[in-house]
C-alpha cells in the first residue's frame, strides 16, 4: 500500500546548512497492516505521518501510495488522491467548534463528490455505527474528550478511506477512553482498513501488527 524510498525531510538552518528531521526513510506498509510509529519527542514521528497524509510537501525521496508515485504528483493531484484514500485522526481532535457533531461529520463529505442524500445517509450511518445518534446536535464543547475523539475517528473514516493515519489519537484521553478508541481502531483494521498511528504508548502500540521505532529522524528498528 505504502512504499517509501530514501525519504528525507529537512529545514534550512543557514547558508547550505540543514536540520534533518527525517533521514533515509525506507518503509513498506502492506494493505491491511496496522503500523505504530514510536519514538521520543522530536524523533520525526508526526512529520512522517503528515508526509504520509500529504499535508507536508517539502520532502525528497520516493513515496508510492498503491501504484501512484506521489513524489511525481502536483499539490492539487496529491490533494485529490488524499481525499480519495486517506483519513486523519488528530491528537487534539480538531473538531470545528461552531459546528454540531452532525455538521462535523458532514464536512469531509462536503469536500468530496457526494450528493446531499448520500451525505445524509453516510452521516446517519456513521452516527449509528459509533452510537452517537443522540449527540448529533451537540457542539464539541458539550462532549467529553473521549466522545470528541470518537467523532474525530468517525469523521476520518466517513469518506471510506483505505488508509487511516492517527497522530497520538489517545494522547488527550484517560486510559479507559483510550482503550475504547484503540479497540475501535483494531476493529476497523480487522475490517480491512490500513492504519498508521503515532504513539508514545507501548500498550496502544500493542493493538497494532508492527512497530517502527524512530530516533533523531532515523528508523532504528522494526518489531513485528
Amino acid at each position, binding site marked *: 500500500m505504502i512504499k517509501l524510498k530514501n525519504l528525507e525531510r529537512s529545514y534550512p538552518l543557514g547558508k547550505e546548512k540543514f536540520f534533518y528531521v527525517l533521514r533515509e526513510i525506507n518503509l513498506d506498509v502492506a494493505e491491511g497492516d496496522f503500523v505504530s510509529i514510536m519514538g521520543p519527542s522530536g524523533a520525526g514521528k508526526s512529520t512522517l505521518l503528515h508526509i504520509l*497524509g500529504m499535508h507536508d510537501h517539502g520532502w525528497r525521496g520516493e513515496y508510492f501510495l498503491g501504484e501512484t508515485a506521489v513524489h511525481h504528483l502536483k499539490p492539487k493531484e496529491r490533494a485529490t488522491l488524499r481525499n480519495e484514500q486517506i483519513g486523519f485522526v488528530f491528537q487534539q481532535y*480538531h473538531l*470545528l467548534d461552531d459546528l454540531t457533531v452532525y455538521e462535523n461529520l458532514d*464536512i469531509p463529505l462536503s*469536500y468530496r463528490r457526494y450528493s446531499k442524500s448520500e451525505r445524509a445517509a453516510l452521516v446517519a450511518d456513521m452516527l449509528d455505527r459509533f452510537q452517537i445518534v443522540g449527540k448529533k446536535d451537540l457542539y464539541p464543547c458539550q462532549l467529553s474528550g473521549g466522545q470528541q475523539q470518537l467523532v474525530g475517528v468517525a469523521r476520518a473514516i466517513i469518506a471510506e478511506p483505505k488508509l487511516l493515519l492517527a497522530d497520538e489519537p489517545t494522547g488527550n484521553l484517560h486510559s479507559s477512553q483510550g482503550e475504547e478508541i484503540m479497540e475501535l481502531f483494531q476493529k476497523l483494521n480487522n475490517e480491512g482498513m490500513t492504519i498508521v498511528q503515532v504513539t508514545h504508548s507501548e500498550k496502544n502500540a500493542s493493538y497494532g501488527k508492527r512497530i517502527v521505532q524512530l530516533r533523531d529522524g532515523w528508523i532504528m528498528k522494526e518489531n513485528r
Partner: protein
Amino acid sequence: MIADLKFALRMLVKNPAFSIVAFLAIALGIGANATIFGIINALILRPLPVGHSDRLVRIYTADPRFVGASAISYPNFLDYSKQDTAFTGMAGYAFAAMGMTRGAETRTVFGEVVTGNYFDLLEVKPALGRTFLPEEDTTPNGHPVVVLGHKFWKSLGGDPGIIGSIITLNGHAFTVIGVAPPKFGGVDTGFAPDMWLPMAMHEWVRPVPDDWFTNRRALFVNTIGRLKAGVSLSQAQAQMKTVARQLEQAYPDVNKERSVVLKSAESAKSQGLAGPGNEDVAANVSLLLLAIAASILLIACANVANLLLARATTRQREMAIRLAVGAGRGRLIRQLLTESALLGLLGGIGGILCAYWLGDVLLSLLPATPVPVVLDPHPDLRVLLVSLALAILSGVIFGLAPALQMARWNLTESLRERVSSSSGAIGRWNLRNLLVVAQVAVSLLLLIGSGLFLKAFRRAQAIDPGFRTENLAIVSVDPSLAGYDPDRGAQVVRRIVDEIRRKPEAVSAGLGRWVPLGTAGGIARTIIVDGRDENAERNRKPANVNQVSPGYFETLGIPLLRGRNFTEQDAEKTAARVAVINDAMAQQFWPNEAPVGRRFHFIQGDSFEVIGITRTFKSSTIGETPTPMVYLPFTDVPDGGITFFVHTAGTPGPALSETRRIIRDVDNRIPITYEKTVRDHMAIALWPSWMGAMLLAVLGALALLLASMGVYGVMAYSVSQRTRELGIRMALGAQSSQVLGLIFQQGMLLAAMGIVVGLLGAFGSTRLVQTFLYGVNPGDPTIFLGVTLLLTLAALAACYFPARRALKINPVLALRTE
C-alpha cells in the same frame, strides 16, 4: 494614571502596524472634521473681530416687493441715527471700487466709505496711527483721509512709517492716517476691504452720477447699531419699527410698505455670501458638510473599534493575568480607555496638521473673483480645542466596547491555553460585524450623495445659460474712477469699442452694464405698464434693468425673438425712449398680448416703448428661474462702470490683451475692474457647485477608503483567527476554491448587508438635498447602481488579500498552533 499612559505608549510602540493603521484612520476622520469645521468657523462661528460683537445688530430695509433684506437709503439712515432709539450709536458703510494710481499703472482696489463713528462704534483700535475723527465725516470732500486694511498695507510693503504718506485714489490725493488691526476686515464674512474712507468723501471715492445720497429710494447704506445696555434685540426691533412707520407716513411715496428688520451682527455676517433670498444657504450647506464629516469620523471610529476588538482577543490572557493578580475590572477599563484616548489624541494631532494642509489646498482652489474673497479656513484655537476634544472623545467611544468586552471575560477560561476560534466566524453576530455593516452603509450613503452632486454639477455645466459660452472676451472698466463724468465716460468707451471693432479678430463687440452670471445680474426696479392702475399692487412688479449698446445682443449670441434691435440713434439724448425686454418679462407683463409697441414706466420718470423681445438668459445664477429684464440704450456710463463684450473668430485670449492695450493707449488711468474669457468667467459662476461636488467627492472617496479598510481589517483578523479551522478544513480535503469561497462569502455577506442598509438610508435621505441637485433625480438609478457596484468591487478587493493569505495556510503548521 501616568503609569497607564506609559504603558499605553509602550503598547502603541510594540504594535507598530496596528498603531499606524489606527492613527491614519483617526487622523483622516479628525482631519476631515477639522477642515470642515475650520471652514464653518471662518464663515459662521468665528466672532467678528470687534468689541462686544454680541451687542451689535444689523439694520435692514424690509420691503415685501424685494427678495430678502436690503440695505437702507442714506436719508433714512440719517433719520434713524437722529432718533433716540435703542442704540448707543449707528454706523453706516457702503462698498466702493476705486482706481489706485501708482506710477504709470492704475489698478482697482476695494474699499468701504464709512460714517465717521464706524471704528468707534465697532470698538476697533488701529494697529498704526488712528481711525476717523467725527469731524472728518462732516464736510463733503473736506478730509481726504484713509485707513488701510492690514493685509493691503502689507501688500504695499508694510512700511511702519506709512502714516502721513499720500496715496492716489480716483486721481485724488488721500492721506493715510491709520492701519487697521490684522484680523479686522469689516463686518461681512468673506470680504475684507483694502481700505476705509469717510462717507463725506463719497463724491471722490464713489463718483455716483445720480442722487444716491439724497434719494430715499436708493438702498445702499449697510447699517450697524450697538444696543444700549439692557435693551434686547426684540425691544430694539419694536422701537425701530415705530420710527420706520413715522418715516413711511412722512415720505409715503418712497417709504410705502417699507419697514425695518434687525438681525444680530453675528448671525448676519455670512448671510450675504449667497445673495439676496439665500441668507440661509451658508448655514444649510455648513450643516450638510458637518453631517458628512461626522459620518466619516464615525466610520473611522468604527474602524479603530474593530481593530481594538480584534486586538482584544489576543490580549485575553494578559487581561486574565491582570485580573488574577488583583486588578479590578474598573481599573482594567480605565487602562484600556487610556490607551484608546491616547490613540485618539495622537490621531487628532495628525488630523489637525492634515487640516492645516487641507486649508492651504482649499485656498489654492478659490477662483479669482471680481471682488476678492477673503477666507481663512485654517484651524484657530477654537477649531484646535474642538478637534482635540473630538479626538479624545472618539478615542473613548471606540475604546469603550473593546474595554467592556475585555473586562467581561471569564478569568478561568481566559487562562486556558487556547483562545476559542469561534470569534472569527460569521455565525455569531458580534459587534465587529455590525460595525463593518454600519461602515459600508454610511460610506454608500456618502458615495451616493457625492455621485448625485457630481451629476448635478455636470448638469449645471450643461445648462444653456442662454448666451455665448465660447469665443467671447469680457473686459470691465470704470472711467469715473479716472475722473470722467458719465457723459465723457460714454464718449471714451464708445471710442474704445469702435477701436475694438476695427480689429480683425473681433467678429463683433458691444457694451453692457452687467456681466451675466457676475456678482450682480442687474439692478431691480419697479415697472408699471402704462394705462394700468399704478396703485394696484398686481401692476407693480420688479424687473432687472440693464444698459446695452447696439451690437450687444449679437455679440452675446442672444437672439431677438420679435421687433427690432437698438440703433445708434436710440442712444441720442433727443431720441424717443425705447426699450428691449426679454421673453420672461413679456410673459409676465403682457401674458396674452403682443408686447412690441406697448409702453411702461418706472415709478419715477418717462415712459418707454417696447421695440423688441429677446430670448431670456441666466443673469445672476445658473439655476435661477427666468428673470424679467429690461434693456435700455446705453447713453452714459452708469455707476459701477461698463463692460466690453468681444465676440472673436478664434480663441478669445488675444482679444483680452488687445482690449487692454487699446484701453491703455486711450487713457492709462482708466482702471480695468474685471477681465476674463467667457469660459473662465463661467468657471467662477459654477464654482460653488464645483466646490460642493469636489468636497463631497473627496469625502466620499475617504469614506470608501475607510470602509474598505474596515472590511479588510475584519477579514484579515477573521482569517488569522480561523487559521486552525481553515487548516482543519484543508486537512479534511477543502480545495482552494472552497477556502476562497468561505472567506469571500463571509466578507461579501457583511458588505451586502451594509449595502442594503445604505441603499434604504439613501432612498430616504437624498430627497433632503434635492434643492442642490439642479433637477437630478435624488433616486437616480445610474448613481445608485454605479455606487453599489463600486462598493461591491471595493469589498471584493478588501476580501481578496485576506483570502489569498488563507490559501497560504499550511495545515501542518495551523494544526500545530494548538
